C-alpha cells in the first residue's frame, strides 16, 4: 500500500509535466485542426534555454524559468510564422501542415545537434535531494516542485481561457473560425496567442523535464508521450489533455514500478492504439463529425 501511494505521487508529478506539454498540442489542435509535431522541438529548446541560463549566466532559479519560457514562446510563434502561416494563407490541406511541422522539428533538432552537440547535459542541483518525509512516505523536493509549478501554470491557463476576453475569443475561434472572424475576431492574433501560450508552457515543462532527467537533442521524441496523452484525453480539449496526462503519468510509473521500465513506452503506444480503436475522440473529446 505504501509502495502504491509512493508510485502514485511520482506518477502525479510526471503527469502534471506531461499536462503542461499536452495543452500545447491541444490548444493548437483546437484552433487549427492539426497536430503540431514541432512542439516537441520547442520543449527541447526550452530545456536547453533553462540549462544555459542556470549554468552559463548563473541566473537565479525563478528568472531562468521565466527566461526559458519567454524564449520558447517567441520561438513557437516564429515557427508558426515561417512554417504554417504561408500554408494557412493558401488554405492548404492538413497534410501539408504536418509535413511542414515535421520539417520544422527536424530543423530544430539538428540545429541543436550542430550548434550545441549531441551530448547529454545535466542540470545543476537546484533543490536538495533530501526528500520530505510524510510518515512512511518519501516525497522528493523536485517532484513536489514539478507538481506545484505545473498546477499553478495550468490554473492560470484555465483562468485565462475562461475569464478573459482573449480567452473567450480563443474559445469562439475553436468553435467556429469562420463565424468568429466575421464577428470581428482577429484570427491571426488568436493563432499567435495560442502558439505563444503553448510555447511558454513548453518552456516551463522543458526546464522541469530537464531537471528531472537530462537534456539532449532527442528529448523531443520523449515528449511525444505528452502528445499521446493529449490524444488520450481528446485532442482539442484542455481538461482532456490534463486528465489524459495525469492518467498516463500514473500508469507509466505504476507499470515501471511493478513490472519493468522496458514496457513503459510500449504501454503508452498501446494505450494510444487502444483509445483510437475504441474511442477515437478521446475521453473528453467532441464528436469528430463536427470537425470533419
Amino acid at each position: 500500500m505504501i509502495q502504491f501511494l509512493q508510485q502514485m505521487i511520482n506518477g502525479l508529478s510526471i503527469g502534471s509535466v506531461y499536462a503542461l506539454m499536452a495543452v500545447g498540442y491541444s490548444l493548437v489542435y483546437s484552433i487549427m485542426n492539426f497536430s503540431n509535431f514541432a512542439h516537441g522541438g520547442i520543449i527541447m529548446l526550452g530545456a536547453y534555454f533553462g540549462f544555459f541560463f542556470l549554468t552559463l549566466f548563473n541566473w537565479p532559479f525563478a528568472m531562468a524559468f521565466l527566461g526559458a519560457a519567454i524564449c520558447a514562446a517567441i520561438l513557437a510563434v516564429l515557427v508558426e510564422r515561417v512554417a504554417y502561416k504561408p500554408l494557412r494563407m493558401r488554405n492548404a490541406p492538413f497534410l501539408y501542415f504536418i509535413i511542414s511541422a515535421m520539417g520544422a522539428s527536424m530543423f530544430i533538432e539538428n540545429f541543436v545537434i550542430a550548434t550545441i552537440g549531441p551530448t547529454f547535459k545535466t542540470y545543476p542541483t537546484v533543490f536538495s535531494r533530501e526528500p520530505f518525509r510524510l510518515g512512511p512516505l518519501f516525497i522528493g523536493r523536485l517532484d513536489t516542485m514539478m507538481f506545484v509549478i505545473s498546477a499553478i501554470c495550468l490554473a492560470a491557463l484555465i483562468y485565462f481561457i475562461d475569464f478573459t476576453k482573449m480567452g473567450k475569443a480563443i474559445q469562439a475561434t475553436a468553435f467556429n473560425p469562420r463565424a468568429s472572424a466575421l464577428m470581428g475576431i482577429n484570427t491571426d492574433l488568436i493563432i499567435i496567442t495560442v502558439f505563444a501560450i503553448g510555447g511558454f508552457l513548453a518552456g516551463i515543462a522543458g526546464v522541469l523535464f530537464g531537471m528531472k532527467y537530462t537534456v539532449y537533442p532527442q528529448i523531443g521524441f520523449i515528449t511525444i508521450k505528452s502528445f499521446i496523452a493529449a490524444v488520450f484525453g481528446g485532442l482539442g480539449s484542455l481538461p482532456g489533455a490534463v486528465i489524459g496526462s495525469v492518467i498516463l503519468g500514473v500508469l507509466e510509473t505504476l507499470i515501471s514500478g511493478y513490472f519493468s521500465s522496458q514496457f513503459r513506452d510500449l504501454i503508452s503506444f498501446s494505450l494510444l492504439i487502444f483509445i483510437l480503436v475504441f474511442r477515437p475522440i478521446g475521453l473528453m473529446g467532441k464528436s469528430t463529425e463536427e470537425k470533419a
Partner: protein
Amino acid sequence: MDWFYIKGILILSGINLMAVLGLSLLTGFTGLFSFGHAGFMAIGAYTAAAMGIKLGLPLIPSLLIGGLAAGIFSLFIGKLTLNLKGDYFCIATLGFGEAIRLILDNVQYFGGARGWPGIPLKIDLWNVIIINVVGILILINLINSRHGRNMIAIREEELAAKTIGIDTFKYKMISLFISAVYAGIAGGMVGYYTGFLQPKMFSMNKSTELTIIVIFGGIGSISGSVLGALFLTALPEILRAFALWRLVAYGAAVIFIMISRPEGLMGGKEITLKGIMRLLRLKNRPGKAAEG
C-alpha cells in the same frame, strides 16, 4: 567517388524507392497519410530474414513472404483504423509503427534491441533494379485500371466517391494492403543488404523520411516518387562535407518546398515516353523550319 560508393547509394535509393512506391499509392493516390510505414518495413524485414536464415529460402520467395506478412498485418490495422478521419488515421498508424518497433526491442529470439546479425548478403544492384522495375510496372498498371481511378476518386472527394457507389472502405483497405506489401519487401531488402537488423532502423524517423520523399516527389506521380527517392537518398551523401548541417538544410528544404511549391517536384504529372518524344520534336522543329 568510386563505383562502389555510388553503387551503395543507388542500392539504398532503390530500397527507399520500393517503400516510397507503396506509400505513394497510399498517400499520393488514395489520400491516406501513414506515419507507420517503418513498422511495415520492420515486419517485412524480420519475416524475410527469418525465412532466409531459419528456413533457407532463396531471396525472392523470402522477400515476397516478408511483404505478404506486412500486408496481412496491415489488413488487421486497416480494419481497426480506416474508419478514423484524417489526422486520427495518421496518429493511429504512428502508434502501430512505434508499437511494432518497441515489441521487436523485447523479442530476444531476434536479438532484441541489440540487433540481429548474420543475415546473408544477397542484395546487389541488379536485383534491386529488377525488383523496382517490376514494382513500378505493377503500380502503373494498377493506377491506370478501374481500381486505381477509384482510389484517386477517394483522394479527391471521399463523400462524392461514396455517393457514386465506390466501396471506399474496401478500396482504402486494398490501397493500404498493397502499400504495406511494398514496404515489407523494402524492409526485407534492408536486411539482405546490410546483413544486420535492429529495431532502431525502423523508427518514426524512417516513416517521416518516406513521407517527405513522397511529398517532395509530388503527390499522385510515380515518376516523381522515383526522382524524389533518388535525389533525397543521395542528397545527404552529396552534402556529407557539411556533416552536421546537412540535416538542418534538409529540414529547411522541406519547409521551403511546402510553402513555395506544395505540389512537389512532379505533382500529378508523369514522365512518359510520349512526353519525351514530344519534347524532342519541339526541339527539332526550328531546324526543320530552316530546311523548308
